[in-house]
């Protein structure tokens, strides 16, 4: 596997003396994405998920993934406590893990009789491993200070625990500058580092790790995007929806089902971002939408029925398609030939061609709306330009569009009606 794609997992704890932490970590992870909760939200059935995960689930089937109770996005509420727990645990995780592993190593050494520390009695092994409370950790850490884990375990040092800590030997290192000093001097000393730096995410400062740090950060006035309402897509014409996507500043190409999915995803991204205590910029969200587009959007296109992807398959067999759909083509041609006699008097010699072109134009107008990107409104000019294209059943590009007529909205099948209705669509507010 890709080594850069390294994910942490609760099973990391199974190797350590405190396997029970695996359960703690599992509880702090979202059951949908299996990652730590990102902006946890609680549902009305009291289940907690990441904001984006639960929004995606609810727009998908409107049910809580855990108990399948029906729920609505509007009823989701922030779960601050869980967020603070996750933040705290995430900060402590690395150090805690290292510490647990170092205990394991220590035990091994002790078992081999190599331990030089003057700890009393022989049967320390099991005694040490079971009650590894944070108090213990802090203490042995102090002694371990000159060793390899001198800096990192200090990150988990909790203020209350260190207040009553009595250094019984040696010096300890400052986690920032690694200057050796008495344990009691470390915290006052840390302030020296903090004052000039004053970075909002001073990871090493225990004072800033307090939960209040989180809430106060979230209250900072940040330029956030506004929440977006859900749309009832059934009531929206394709052109109106396209316009809406354009107004939102997101791509507006593709057939209607893709537009709907894209809009849904965007609404979820934006609303989840509004929930977040660290909102991201619109640019970042657009990148995220692009990732979605590349991983899932295309899939939706393919799901629409075989060959309707916006790019034709390379190995598309135009001839076979023409043969298998010969009847359709024949019917269309027959239809086209049936109409002209009425107009023939007016249209002189070109009558037949005009009628054929009419058929073509309906083909292409339909295909414009379904497959060709970036069409916000089929203008008269565009429709006329399509008249120039040849009608050739063996031509893959055309053949591909034929089946799309079947599933097409009636309005799209009749481009003339579509066009006349268009000014009305355009007036719809964004």
């Amino acid at each position, binding site marked *: *596997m*890709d080594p850069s*794609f390294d*994910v942490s*997992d*609760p*099973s*990391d704890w*199974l190797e350590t003396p405190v396997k029970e932490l695996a359960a703690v970590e599992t509880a702090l992870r979202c*059951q*949908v*994405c*299996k*990652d730590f909760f990102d902006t946890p939200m609680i549902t009305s059935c009291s289940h907690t998920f990441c904001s984006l*995960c639960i929004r*995606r*689930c609810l727009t*998908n*089937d409107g*049910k809580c*993934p*855990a108990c*399948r109770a029906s729920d609505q996005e509007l009823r989701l509420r922030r779960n601050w406590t869980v967020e603070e727990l996750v933040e705290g645990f995430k900060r402590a995780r690395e150090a805690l893990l290292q510490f647990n592993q170092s205990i394991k190593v220590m035990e091994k050494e002790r078992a081999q009789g190599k331990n030089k520390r003057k700890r009393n009695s022989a049967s320390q092994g099991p005694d040490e491993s079971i009650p590894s409370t944070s108090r213990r950790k802090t203490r042995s850490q102090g002694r371990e200070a000159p060793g390899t884990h001198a800096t990192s375990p200090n990150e988990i040092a909790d203020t209350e625990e260190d207040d009553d800590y009595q250094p019984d030997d040696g010096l300890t290192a400052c986690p920032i500058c690694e200057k050796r000093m008495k344990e009691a001097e470390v915290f006052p000393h840390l302030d020296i580092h903090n004052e000039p730096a004053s970075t909002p995410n001073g990871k090493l400062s225990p004072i800033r790790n307090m939960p209040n740090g989180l809430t106060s950060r979230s209250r900072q006035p940040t330029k956030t995007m506004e929440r977006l309402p859900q749309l009832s897509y059934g009531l929206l014409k394709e052109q109106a929806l396209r316009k809406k996507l354009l107004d939102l500043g997101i791509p507006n190409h593709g057939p209607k089902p893709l537009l709907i999915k894209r809009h849904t995803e965007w609404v979820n991204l934006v609303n989840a971002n509004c929930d977040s205590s660290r909102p991201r910029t619109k640019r970042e969200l657009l*990148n*995220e939408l692009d*990732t*979605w587009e*590349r*991983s*899932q959007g295309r*899939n939706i296109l393919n799901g629409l029925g075989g060959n309707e992807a916006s790019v034709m398959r390379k190995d598309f067999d135009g001839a076979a398609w023409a043969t298998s759909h010969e009847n359709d083509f024949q019917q269309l041609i027959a239809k086209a030939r049936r109409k002209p006699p009425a107009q023939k008097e007016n249209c002189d010699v070109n009558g037949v061609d005009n009628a054929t072109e009419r058929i073509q134009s309906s083909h292409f107008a339909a295909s414009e709306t379904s497959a060709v990107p970036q069409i916000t409104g089929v203008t008269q000019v565009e429709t006329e330009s399509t008249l120039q294209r040849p009608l050739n059943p063996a031509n893959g590009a055309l053949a591909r569009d034929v089946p799309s007529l079947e599933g097409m909205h009636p309005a799209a099948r009749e481009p003339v009606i579509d066009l006349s209705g268009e000014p009305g669509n355009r007036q719809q507010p964004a």
Partner: protein
Amino acid sequence: MATSVASRRLFSEYRALTSSPPDGITAGPISEDDIFLWEALIQGPDGTPYEGGIFPAELKFPKDYPLAPPTMKFLGEVWHPNVYPTGLVCISILHAPGDDPNHYEQASERWSPIQSVEKILISVMSMLAEPNDESPANVEAAKMWRERRPEFEKRVREGVRRDLGLT
């Protein structure tokens, strides 16, 4: 975030499955290039005619996983009421709510994003032990299971032995 939600989650499930695998189950992506295609090995449950057999299966994940369930297909021949002759597994946990081929399943036992590969494979293992003949995917096998159980078991055992290359 160059990786999609689905691949991240699949990777995380893969890690969990490798570090603490359930009994009798192994699963993982077939190649590094495609995390959406997995192969799984399931041991036949003890005390059933499938005992002793190792059943390889292929899991295909949709791009919107975990919103939609994967499909599972046995690669060898598995004579079982809930396995189509093509090897495709028909089990409620693999069906999204609203997509019920046989109209008998409770919504509560269907796919939900909180299910996982591990749970699917465990369900399939227990399906091997206890077929559900209400919705047979393989009608012949279901009939045999219901009416001629000894013959059914004999056929399954023969299949297991054949797959292991013992006959």
